[in-house]
């Protein structure tokens, strides 16, 4: 046995060419879209489509998080869109507060007396909470005036929720479908809570007008949308590198081992719960950041965005893209959400069957649901599996058995490096 057989420590980028390829494609895409945009370039791509693309990049980022927690660690979380939404709410509070403050200050400036802080605060509160019949700030808005604090909340709120929930759930060894249902229950509880008018976040009205950046009314939306597009691309790039770094080392080895056989990892001496908690919390934070970038582009956030169905769609994207590989998550999220926009936007041509016209606005969800079933049954590797055909990756032949006894473990069809 010589050292030659051992892997030589190469630079990170060289060891993982897929990361470099991904970053190159992302950079090309960003530059290309910028040139073609209305804001800077020749205007082939409309501002609303820039926003759609920017939002899609955010969805890709949260899909990455989902892939990390599900595809790599085997935890089918049905709560990551809730963390996504919490990130959106956190930034939305500041956006709404700061913008309303400017409006209120303008209107009060015309008054004969300069306004007192109380008058300003009351004015803002009346503006924001008038729709839910309140004119006072709920306690959770205590930091809404401060951008740095709300930015911190984007990370802290989802992270803390994930930490507490994950600690409780993992501690009591809830695994597999039980954990999925438990996360779904958490998501449902959160969305039901936010639906209440006295939740302090405007009930089912949600937060709106988030596309307008406070103090930047002069900057056209075409430009603002590009800023967010760039920020989303940057976040996705950084997120991808981070995830790739995590899964490439021994940590990745351990979480994949947890996915395939949790008990065995425990007998190796690894505190499985702590690893799961780290991954769960970390991905919740990534989801929160993605949400904070998404909702200013969407312009509005309401509790329906947090409903359990959203998190399940997230799992659908990752599954269709191919779980257990990072680019699979990105492909899945981008492909499904863009196709979904195309179908539900009414651009897809209706099919006239003579007796009945299939209108895709109505039937797209049916198609999505059924194609999802088909992917689960016949193509567990998802779209990412196509790339294996090109690179001719081989998987161990296990005669159809799964790779571990745990419920989250990979099946033979999915196994790949």
């Amino acid at each position, binding site marked *: 046995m010589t050292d030659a057989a051992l892997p030589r420590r190469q630079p990170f980028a060289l060891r993982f060419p897929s990361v470099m390829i991904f970053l190159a494609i992302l950079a090309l895409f960003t530059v290309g879209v910028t040139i073609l945009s209305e804001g800077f370039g020749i205007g082939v791509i409309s501002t609303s489509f820039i926003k759609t693309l920017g939002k899609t990049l955010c969805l890709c980022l949260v899909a990455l998080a989902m892939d990390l927690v599900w595809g790599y660690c085997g935890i*089918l979380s049905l709560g990551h869109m809730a963390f996504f939404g919490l990130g959106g709410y956190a930034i939305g509070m500041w956006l709404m507060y700061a913008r309303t403050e400017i409006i209120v200050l303008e209107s009060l400036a015309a008054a*004969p*007396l*300069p*306004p*007192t*802080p*109380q*008058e300003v605060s009351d004015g803002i509160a009346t503006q924001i909470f008038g729709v839910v019949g309140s004119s006072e700030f709920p306690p959770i808005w205590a930091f809404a005036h401060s951008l740095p604090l709300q930015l911190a909340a984007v990370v802290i709120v989802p992270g803390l929720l994930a930490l507490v*929930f994950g600690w*409780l*759930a993992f*501690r*009591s*060894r*809830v695994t*597999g*479908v*039980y954990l*999925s*249902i*438990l996360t*779904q*229950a*958490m998501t*449902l*509880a959160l969305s*039901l*809570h936010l*639906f*209440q008018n*006295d939740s302090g976040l405007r009930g089912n009205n949600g937060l709106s007008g988030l596309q307008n950046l406070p103090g930047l009314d002069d900057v056209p939306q075409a430009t603002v949308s590009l800023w967010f597009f760039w920020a989303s691309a940057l976040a996705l790039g950084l997120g991808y590198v981070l995830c790739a770094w995590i899964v490439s080392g021994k940590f990745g080895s351990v979480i994949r081992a947890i996915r395939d056989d949790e008990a065995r990892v425990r007998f190796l001496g690894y505190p499985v719960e702590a690893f799961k908690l780290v991954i769960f919390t970390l991905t919740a934070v990534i989801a929160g950041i993605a949400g904070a970038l998404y909702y200013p582009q969407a312009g509005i956030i309401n509790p329906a965005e947090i409903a*359990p*169905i959203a998190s*399940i769609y997230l*799992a*659908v994207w990752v*599954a269709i893209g191919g779980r257990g590989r990072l680019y699979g998550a990105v492909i899945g999220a981008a492909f499904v959400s863009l196709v979904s926009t195309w179908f539900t936007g009414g651009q897809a041509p209706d099919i006239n069957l003579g007796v009945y016209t299939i209108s895709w606005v*109505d*039937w797209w*969800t*049916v198609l*999505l*649901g*059924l*194609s*999802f*079933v088909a992917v*689960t*049954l016949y193509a*567990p590797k998802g779209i990412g599996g196509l790339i294996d055909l090109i690179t001719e990756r081989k998987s161990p032949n296990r005669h159809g058995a*799964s790779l571990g006894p745990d*419920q*989250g473990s990979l*099946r033979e069809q999915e196994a790949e490096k």
Partner: protein
Amino acid sequence: MLRFAATLLACLTLSLPASSQQADAPIQQLLQSQSDLIVESSRRTIGPAIDALANSGLPAAQVVLDKWQLREMWVNTETGLFVYAEEVDRDTLRIFDFADGSLIGDVPDEGFEQLKPNSGIRGLIGTALVQFQLSDPDPDTRQRALDAIERGAEESHLAALRASLPTETDPQILARKQRLERLLTIAYGATEAERIEAIQSFDGDLGVDVRAALNPLLAVRVEAAEALPSDDDIGRVLEPGSDTLSRDDAYALLVAADLAKPRISVEDQRNALIANIADGQVAGIQVATLNSQDARDMAYAALAEQGTVTAVATEAEVDQRLANHVFFERYVGAPPEVVFAAKAALNAIENKVAINQMFDLSLDALSLASIYFLAAIGLAITFGVMGVINMAHGEFIMMGAYTGYVVQLFIPDYTLSILVAIPLAFAVTFGAGVAMERLVIRWLYHRPLETLLATFGISIALQQIAKNIFGTQARPLTAPGWLDGSLVINDIVSISYIRIAIFVLALLFLALFLFVMNRTRLGLEVRAVTQNPRMAASMGINPDKINMLTFGFGSGIAGIAGVAIGLYAKVTSEMGSDYIVQSFMTVVVGGVGNIWGTLLGATMVGFLQKGIEWFNPSNTLAAQTYMILFIILFIQFRPKGIIALKGRAAEA
């Protein structure tokens, strides 16, 4: 003046042709004396006229009030005389004399104007009529009179009621009268002893009317004084700034009683300052610096010193004033002894009410638990017995409900349609379940996470298909008439028949499940396949077939549950997703693989939700939120549910 009018009336009457009306009859004279009030009637002014009629002692007064109330009283526009009339046709009236009820004749209606008392006046008339009606020979009229007293009791009713007691023959009405008499005595009894006796006679009575009679006696007025008076009608002492008495209210009380200087609202202060701006200054202070409350207070004080505005209390003065006074409640509803008797009686009643409310709440919780049990039992089979997660379970419930709706479109008889819908719903969802098992689930056994996702795909597809077919609005699934209404045990405890039916259905399902699992060949084979599929297969049981049938059975039960839930709630394409999480929670909380666990789980979830709703009745969303949080915590302590399997069986 009155005599003049009477003479004039007499002349007019004489000049009237074809009239045999007794213009000088006492009742007519009384009417004439109140003529202005009656013709130009309004709720505010009509009182004296009605009183005059009611207290006249004239037998005809009742007829007048009756006809007036029924809008059958007319006035002759020429003579001003009152008659009552029937409309023979569009233009002709048949008029009658109030004095003796005799027919006067058919006349054209041009000369008469109908009196149209509004509902307020009719109510007043009704109250006045009561005393006549209480002794009316017709029992229905007497009942109506009692109804009227219950709606709006007056002091005068008490005497009338008492007067009518000895002559009452109908025992039922007599009992009612006696109860009303006691209630009125509580409010209007002449002596305290009489009132207290009446109050004590209602000890522990759950009637809403008793509480309605007692509560006004406890009315209080908040007062302030420098020292607490030792009068015996003093109730609680209140602390300013507490929930019952805010600081602002307490101070306002002092101001109203002239015990303190007034305060000024921020708004008024602002306006006063604005009114006194001169050269960009207020009382020598630059306007631009008035951007804080302190600065404004200072400016206002400066203005007050100049005498431009009245001085107001500062915060320190407010604090001092509040500290120097005590605030207390004084009973103003009744004399102290009566109040204490009422309080004691009310306490006893409240305790009894609370117990009954608990009972009522338990019934509510039980019916909610039945619904959860119905929704979850199918899941207990597919998830609990087979270990298959079926996220489309809620959609099977929805399919069952829509089946019921479609059946009702074809069979208008509700009883028959329900009887048809139940087996049909079972058949439809059984078929759907078998199809799903064959096409999807059997490829995914031992892959629970993927089963979860695949069935979820089916769930969203089914939901959207239902939306495309039936639209987004809720469809009715009407219960048969004999299920309308509710079983009323007393004023507090009642339960609707539909809920009872659902409860019975839940029990039937439990029995059916136990029968199928423990007493039939299918159940035996299901248990065999669940415990050891290979062994079962080697003994000639076809696990494929058993799995298919079990899944179909679970889905079919979901369909029937859908019909039941549809009767109780609305049928929409999203109704399934409303129940799916709670159903899973029910199964998980109860302990997977055990029907008694599911029963316990449903009971717990149902009672829990109702219990939380009881604390915060206005907010069912919050109740659901807290319930889910509680369940998440519960699973921390009993991860395997209430009834947990142990040892090797649990690991299989």
